[in-house]
């Protein structure tokens, strides 16, 4: 465990020094993320000009949900985006060799080696939006609710990571991950809307097999709704199943990996 923490600290140091070499890009990416946050908040503010309740939530509750998915996005952009982007290329070029011979989990090393320092600034901004959303929430917020919300966001982040890796693993056989990558990005739109709007079989699918509606909505439910424990249990079980599936299929994929220029 200590080895992994020490490794993470090195990743962090290298990533910050690399980001400082490209200062203009560093600034552009901060502006890009600020605009992304503003657009999502603006979108729901326009929606609430036409309704008072959406998916069972009022505007204040919706802002907590929005802050939650922005935080989830910032976490993914900071910790995963650069790494996951390169994974299919490493598999196809045979660069995975360098990671397989190291004395740590290859999936851990590949997933967390490049920390996006510029997105880290946005992680702070997303956290500030969350504080603003909670401050504007008129119902009482309990410490337990906040703890469960944070735990839910961590689970939501893990689930998003597992689903994303599952869309990369077929590259071991197909040699092109573009199609599934596009499917994943199209499906992320379902994360950005509250789960309460989905009904029938679509709701069942989006909260189990393709659990995009779980990732940000269920953490928000833990802060807002009374059914906190049910939501946490549901999210935890689905995350665990996807975690085991990811680990299993990653090892199956590694067995099919034929090294350089595979």
């Amino acid at each position: 465990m200590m080895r992994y923490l020490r490794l993470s600290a090195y990743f962090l140091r290298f990533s910050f020094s690399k980001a400082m070499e490209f200062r203009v890009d560093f600034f552009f990416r901060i502006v890009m993320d600020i605009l992304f946050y503003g657009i999502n908040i603006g979108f729901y503010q326009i929606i609430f000009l036409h309704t008072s309740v959406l998916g069972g939530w009022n505007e204040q509750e919706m802002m907590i949900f929005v802050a939650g998915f922005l935080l989830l996005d910032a976490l993914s952009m900071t910790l995963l985006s650069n790494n996951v982007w390169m994974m299919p290329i490493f598999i196809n070029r045979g660069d995975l060799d360098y990671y397989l011979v190291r004395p740590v989990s290859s999936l851990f090393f590949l997933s967390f080696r490049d920390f996006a320092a510029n997105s880290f600034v946005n992680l702070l901004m997303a956290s500030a939006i969350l504080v603003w959303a909670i401050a504007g929430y008129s119902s009482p917020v309990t410490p337990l609710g906040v703890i469960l919300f944070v735990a839910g966001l961590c689970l939501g982040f893990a689930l998003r990571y597992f689903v994303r890796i599952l869309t990369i693993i077929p590259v071991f056989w197909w040699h092109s991950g573009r199609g599934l990558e596009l499917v994943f990005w199209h499906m992320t739109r379902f994360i950005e809307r509250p789960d309460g709007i989905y009904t029938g079989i679509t709701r069942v699918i989006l909260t189990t097999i393709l659990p995009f509606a779980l990732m940000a909505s269920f953490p928000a439910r833990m802060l807002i709704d009374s059914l906190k424990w049910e939501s946490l249990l549901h999210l935890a079980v689905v995350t665990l199943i996807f975690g085991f599936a990811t680990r299993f299929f990653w090892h199956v994929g590694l067995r099919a990996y034929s090294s350089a220029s595979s």
Partner: protein
Amino acid sequence: MRERIRFLFSVFTMELRRILSYRVDFWIQFLGSIAAQLGVAYFLWRAIFDQRDIERIGEFSFPGLMLYYLLAPLIGRTIRGAEMGSISEEIYEGTLTRYLIYPVSFFRYKFASHLAYTSLFLAQAGAAMLLFGIFFGFPDDFVFSPTSLFVAIVSCVLATYLYFALIASIESVAFWADNVWSLVVIVRFATGLFGGAMIPLSLFPSWAQELLVFMPFAYFISFPVRTVLGLNAPEAWIRGLLVLIGWSCAATLVLGVVWNRGKYRYTGVGI
């Protein structure tokens, strides 16, 4: 002249063949974007219509809104074309040099390949609209006419050029900066909300609608979609086309200035 046109046509057809050689990715992109956009819009607006128990929101019935959400991403993609990366990569990697021996200018070459994407996406948009009409019927909210269709196509052509000139200006910043893809993503985000892809502009507050009419973003999605659907009056056509021409001239001017200054920084071996 004829040689140049023949060369540009071969660039156009070569790009078409290249796009269609990755058929799985092409169709996943097409079907995936429609399914996700329509799926999310369906549940979002169904929840609002049911909550308020109403038949219309603004100028849209529920089926009308779904047709809008079908056309918005398709028209948006038609105008965006290949979208981004090619110009800044050529500058960054030093491959811009090879265009010196081509018989046409760099931007004509790039615009011909951009048009290959545009024409394919336009065909997809037409096919999707036809399929919607066959399976669900066209909603009564809209009045389709050959004139509005013609104006919509003209506005698409102008908007395609404007988007190309705007993105080319932004990508030319690569002469000075190491990585400019985030600037292009900024334009894309802005187009998503202020262009009417996420929500029709007629549902914005009136002060915002008055402002957005004079911004370029509305012409990348909302204006051509509303024109196809017959929601724009002839006065709106004229004003819209004039604004589009004005922005196109401005973007061409900016592109010329940025490119002419930037090319003196180009070393030919990558930055």
